[in-house]
C-alpha cells in the first residue's frame, strides 16, 4: 500500500521536474523536447510489456498453467494501451518539432508495427472459441511476432532512414545533460512502477473472473485458487 502512495508522489515529482527543473533540450523548437520525458518511457513500457507477454506465453506453453496466460493477456493489454499513448505523444511531438503529425520516421514505423502486432494478437484471441486453443494460439503468435521484432529494430531504421533523405536528428535521446538525465531516468522508473501497479490490478481481476467458473473437478495442474497475494 505504501509503495503505491510513494509511486504517486514520485510521479508527481517527476511531472513537476519535467517542466520546471529540467531545461528544454537544444536543437528543438522551444519547449517541445519536454514531451520526451513522457513519450520515451511510454514506448519503453510498451516494448517491456511485449517482452513480458512473450515470456509469459513461453511459460504457458511449457507448463500450461492458467496464471501464465493471465499474465500474457494483461501484459499485452497494457502494452497496447501504452503503445497507443506512445504513438499519440510521438505524433504530437512530430507535429511540434517537424510540422507534420506523421512522416514515417523510423521510430514511428516501429511503434506502428508493434501496434499492428498487438491488434493481430487480440484479433486472434477473439477469433478462437475453444479456451484451450485460444491460449495456445495467442501464446504461439506472441512468440512468432517477438522473433520478428529484432528484424524490425535493425532493418527498419537502417532502410527507412535512407528512404527519407530529409530525416532529421533522431529525437530518441535529447541532449543528455545531468539534470535532464536524472529526470528522464526518474520518469522511466515512475512509468515502470505505474505499469506494474496496473498490471497487478488487472491480474487480480482476471483471477476473480477465473474463479467464477462452475465447480468442477479441479486438477492440481490448473490451480485456480489464487495463492495469497
Amino acid at each position, binding site marked *: 500500500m505504501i509503495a503505491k502512495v510513494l509511486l504517486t508522489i514520485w510521479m508527481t515529482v517527476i511531472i513537476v521536474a519535467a517542466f520546471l527543473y529540467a531545461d528544454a533540450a537544444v536543437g528543438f523548437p522551444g*519547449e517541445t523536447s519536454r514531451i520526451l520525458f513522457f513519450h520515451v518511457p511510454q514506448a519503453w513500457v510498451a516494448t517491456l510489456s511485449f517482452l513480458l507477454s512473450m515470456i509469459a506465453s513461453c511459460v504457458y506453453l511449457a507448463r500450461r498453467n492458467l496464471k501464465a496466460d493471465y499474465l500474457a493477456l494483461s501484459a499485452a493489454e497494457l502494452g497496447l494501451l501504452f503503445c497507443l499513448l506512445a504513438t499519440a505523444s510521438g505524433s504530437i511531438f512530430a507535429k511540434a518539432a517537424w510540422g507534420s503529425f506523421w512522416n514515417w520516421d523510423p521510430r514511428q514505423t516501429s511503434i506502428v508495427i508493434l501496434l499492428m502486432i498487438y491488434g493481430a494478437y487480440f484479433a486472434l484471441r477473439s477469433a478462437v472459441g475453444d479456451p484451450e486453443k485460444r491460449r495456445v494460439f495467442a501464446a504461439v503468435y506472441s512468440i512468432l511476432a517477438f522473433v520478428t521484432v529484432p528484424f524490425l529494430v535493425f532493418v527498419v531504421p537502417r532502410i527507412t532512414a535512407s528512404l527519407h533523405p530529409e530525416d532529421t536528428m533522431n529525437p530518441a535521446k535529447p541532449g543528455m545533460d545531468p539534470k535532464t538525465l536524472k529526470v528522464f531516468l526518474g520518469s522511466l522508473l515512475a512509468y515502470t512502477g505505474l505499469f506494474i501497479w*496496473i498490471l497487478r490490478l488487472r491480474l487480480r481481476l482476471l483471477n476473480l473472473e477465473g474463479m467464477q467458473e462452475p465447480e468442477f473437478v479441479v486438477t492440481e495442474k490448473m490451480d485456480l485458487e489464487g495463492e495469497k497475494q
Partner: protein
Amino acid sequence: MKEGLNFVLGVNLIIWSGLAFYLFILDRKIKKLEETSTARRK
C-alpha cells in the same frame, strides 16, 4: 514562455491525480471483491 509551461504542468498534474485516485478506488473495489469471493468459497 514560462507561464505557458505552468498551465501545461497544471493540466498534467490534474490528469495524474485523477488517474492515481481512480487506481486507488479500483484497488479497494477489487480487494472487497476478493474478500467476498474467498468468503463464499470457504
